[in-house]
């Protein structure tokens, strides 16, 4: 299957310069927040980091199609690019990282990366891999039952397509033409297991077996992802059913702060992919198209740096929840 790259300029995709700047800002913000998280971990302040680095293009490109407050997102643990695009803040990220009371995802009950926001229609996530897919299918079914044009975007890594839940959801979505977009961020590694031992054949081609379109796309080309996702969202809104998008990207960091990736991959491989860094490529596009120049870029960079520093300090000084809070909220009240 041919990998789709940007086939059109941004105007043809219906994006204006403000959109582009916004996309760029969120990709860079996600990157910088993530970098700071690693530093906090190495300083012993954050117990656990799980990164988005390298996947910002796939995330922002796809999620940019979500209508806030209307569509639903089922992210997986790397999708901080998406959650901040939808409205979570750098402070939220660090509060979650440090498990503080104000953490919007869980009040410090969950590890970082387990996003949740009812207000932003981001579903609460957990650790078992793949459970989000049947849930996303159910959420899409509800839209269909009420004749609404809401869309559900559900995401996971390539390893999440190995488990039964993904297949059950794909099958169900195909039977009922559900308005769900399956985004698989194939970042080549599931902890240490490379895709060649994870995936038989092609992920994108499986959609055909379930009766709907599947596309492979250059996951590090934000506009290419945007384009293919835009089509997919359009299909879903029109009641034409689900789409599978396999975004080919790469995990630039180890699986998490508890993983030493030198045990299973070569530095050279990482360097090869660094040349295809989605942020660098997009900045090149922006500069070539006169949307951004060096000084603007530096200014944005500085602004983001300050934002990140402020957010980090805020979270570091924020209080933990009371220990007795542990007992609260097991059941919802009527």
């Amino acid at each position, binding site marked *: 299957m041919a990998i789709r790259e940007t086939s059109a300029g941004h105007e043809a995709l219906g994006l204006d310069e403000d959109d582009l700047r916004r996309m760029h800002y969120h990709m860079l913000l996600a990157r910088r927040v993530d970098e700071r998280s690693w530093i906090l971990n*190495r*300083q*012993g*302040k954050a117990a*656990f980091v799980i990164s988005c680095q390298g996947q910002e293009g796939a995330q922002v490109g796809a999620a940019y199609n979500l209508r806030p407050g209307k569509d639903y997102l089922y992210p997986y643990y790397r999708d901080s690019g998406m959650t901040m695009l939808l409205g979570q803040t750098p402070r939220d990220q660090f509060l979650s990282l440090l498990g503080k009371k104000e953490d919007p995802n869980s009040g410090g009950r969950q590890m970082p990366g387990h996003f949740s926001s009812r207000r932003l229609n981001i579903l609460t996530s957990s650790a078992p891999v793949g459970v989000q897919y049947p849930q996303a299918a159910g959420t899409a079914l509800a839209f269909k039952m009420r004749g609404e044009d809401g869309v559900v975007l559900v995401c996971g890594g390539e390893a999440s397509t190995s488990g039964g839940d993904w297949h059950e959801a794909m099958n169900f979505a195909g039977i009922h033409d559900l308005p769900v977009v399956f985004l698989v961020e194939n970042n080549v590694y599931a902890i240490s297991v490379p895709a060649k031992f994870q995936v038989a054949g092609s992920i994108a081609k499986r959609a055909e077996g379930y009766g709907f379109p599947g596309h492979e796309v250059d996951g590090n080309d934000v506009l290419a992802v945007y384009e293919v996702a835009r089509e997919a969202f359009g299909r879903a809104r029109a009641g034409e059913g689900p789409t599978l998008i396999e975004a080919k990207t790469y995990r630039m960091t*180890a699986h998490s*702060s508890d*993983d030493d990736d030198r045990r299973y991959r070569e530095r050279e491989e990482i360097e090869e992919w660094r040349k295809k860094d989605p942020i660098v490529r997009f900045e090149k596009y922006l500069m070539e198209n006169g949307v951004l120049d060096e000084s603007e870029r530096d200014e944005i960079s500085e602004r983001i740096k300050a934002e990140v520093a402020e957010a980090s300090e805020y979270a570091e000084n924020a209080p933990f929840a009371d220990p007795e809070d542990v007992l609260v909220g097991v059941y919802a009240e009527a």
Partner: protein
Amino acid sequence: MPQLGESVTEGTITRWLKAEGDEVAIDEPLAEVDTDKVNAELPSPVAGKIEKFLVSEGSTVDVGTEIALVAVAGESDSPASDAPPQENTAADAPTEEFPASGTEAQPAAQDTERQQEVAHAGGDGRGEIEDAETLRLTRSSPVVRRLAEEHGVEITEIPGTGTGGRVTRKDIEGYIEEQEEREEYAPPGLQEEREAFEEPEPEIERVPVYEGDRVEDLTGTRRAIANRMSASKRQAPHAWTMVEVDVSGLAALREREKAAFAEREGINLTYLPFIVEAVVESLREHPVLNSVWDEDRIILRKRINVGVAVDLEDALIVPVIADADELNLVGLARKVDDLVRRARARQLGTEDISGGTFTVNNPGALGSVVSTPIINHPQAAILSAEAIVKRPVVIDDAIAVRSMMNLEVSFDHRVLDGGAALKFLNAVKRRLEAYGPESDTG
């Protein structure tokens, strides 16, 4: 040393990336650190001048250990101070209190008593467990025990209809109800006598409580004791008499024999077995002291079951030496030792505390020289043995120093008179005074 990863407990500085004396910026890599999960660069958490590395390259230290001193601009450096050495406060050795008079009619300090217990209990240090059948009969069930204690009733005295003869809740509830009814029923002709002797039910006037007063609610045990003592005093007109006993010979005998006895028999030789033996033999001669008042008759008991009062912190308990007249001195010594030990350990069964016909009390162990005990109702009499005190005494018109012990008897004046009481007391006295250093302790 930061914690680099969950469950990591230590780290190794593989390489310092700066030198002592260098300036370091915030977040600038300071060292390479190796753990069993990851290998990473450590970004400096502060900006300043590196004063000293506290850990050398290649060393492994626990998470949390100080690894470097950096002088941050504007702060004076404070060298790490050693924690003050821990002070060991020596626990005070518990002081053992012995009765002022130094008698050992009962083993003296409770502490030593308990220590002895531990040494003696079973060969492997664990006591024997009673079997289910026995426990069903003696301890029944929680609710039955509770009702028994609340009403001062003994489980073993109630007929049981449960498994293996167990007293069920219904059985004990029925029994208690019956008892209350029986107390109301009076045989014809005795009613007037009863009314003449019984005090009218006092109107219960509550006592006011003032600020600062401490109110203690009655425990089941306290209430039971209160009821028994009141009943005893109310029903039996108590009279009392006393004799002085010269136990110098007995004391000398005990002094001579106690080591050998302890070695031979494995228990201490106290005064109590001697007293009990004397009491038992005297009761044989004077059986009216071993009897019970029953409305219109006196029942002289055949069996001589001597109760020995044991004072526990929160209770007064009277374990019974059944058929005490069948035991010799050594047997009595053993039995007393066993009962007292089990009493203190709260291991007495109902059979151990029932069926007594006479009671021996030993306030002498706590230093008393005179006391007026309350009869252990429904017995006819109780004997108190007081402390053994060295006193100046007149013998053959000369003053001698002798070991003297007072013996008193409180008795139910309905059953017997002072003469009988004194005849009995003197018999006991005679026997105790007959001991000398050469006597046989068989």
